[in-house]
């Protein structure tokens, strides 16, 4: 498949035309890798501060990924399938966090 040349992008229209082009030429991998990076940075950052609270780390990082992923989804940087995965992780992490048996 031949990719569109960057010169065909109307850059004066702003990021709204440029970001979908990035998604197109990288087959959504750009947005996907940014989402993975955000998730990993926040989950390890949380775990470094509070060791042993894995479900808490999962919930915090998935909610942050969900909010940023929502913004990326509406501008076309994250595909609908990737966003569905983010929603699934967010829901499951919320349930795990609230049903966790914590020692008293």
């Amino acid at each position, binding site marked *: 498949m031949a990719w569109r040349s960057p010169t065909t992008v109307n850059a004066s229209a702003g990021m709204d035309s440029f970001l979908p082009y990035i998604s197109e030429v990288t087959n959504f991998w750009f947005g996907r890798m940014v989402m993975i990076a955000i998730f990993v940075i926040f989950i390890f950052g949380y775990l470094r501060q509070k060791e042993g609270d894995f479900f808490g780390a999962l919930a915090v990082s998935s909610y942050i990924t969900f909010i940023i992923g*929502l913004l990326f*989804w*509406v501008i076309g940087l994250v595909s*609908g*399938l990737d966003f569905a995965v983010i*929603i699934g992780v*967010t829901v499951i992490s919320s*349930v795990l966090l609230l*049903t966790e048996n914590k020692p008293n």
Partner: protein
Amino acid sequence: MADGGFKNLIFGLILFIAFTVMILTVAVDFGSEYERSAEDIGSGSLNLVNFQETANSVQGNASAMRSSFESGSVDDIDDASGMFGTIKKFINLITAPFTLLSGILTNLLKMPKIIIDILLGLLSIGLILGMWRVLRTGS
């Protein structure tokens, strides 16, 4: 299922449904302001319409079961099927959360039907073996 395992399962299911509705509503409402529809999320696999249909069917079954229990009349027992009709209602009550889960997996997450059939088949065998254990040992 000991030590509140079943209670946790039901609690987890309710939370799962509540959070799914909440997060999907946020995504769909926010997306609609930027001309994005729910059909865009996971190629239409995640949308509130399918979810509502699943919830409605489960709610309908639960209402029918409740009215059946509340009637408290022996006339409700079908003479032809004898005690099997009553036992069937009990089994339906026990498997209701799993029916709900299978509905969610099928309609919301678009999981292949064969996987759900295998899971529910294993559950049915487990229930039968569990009932047999109760009859044998009285535990």
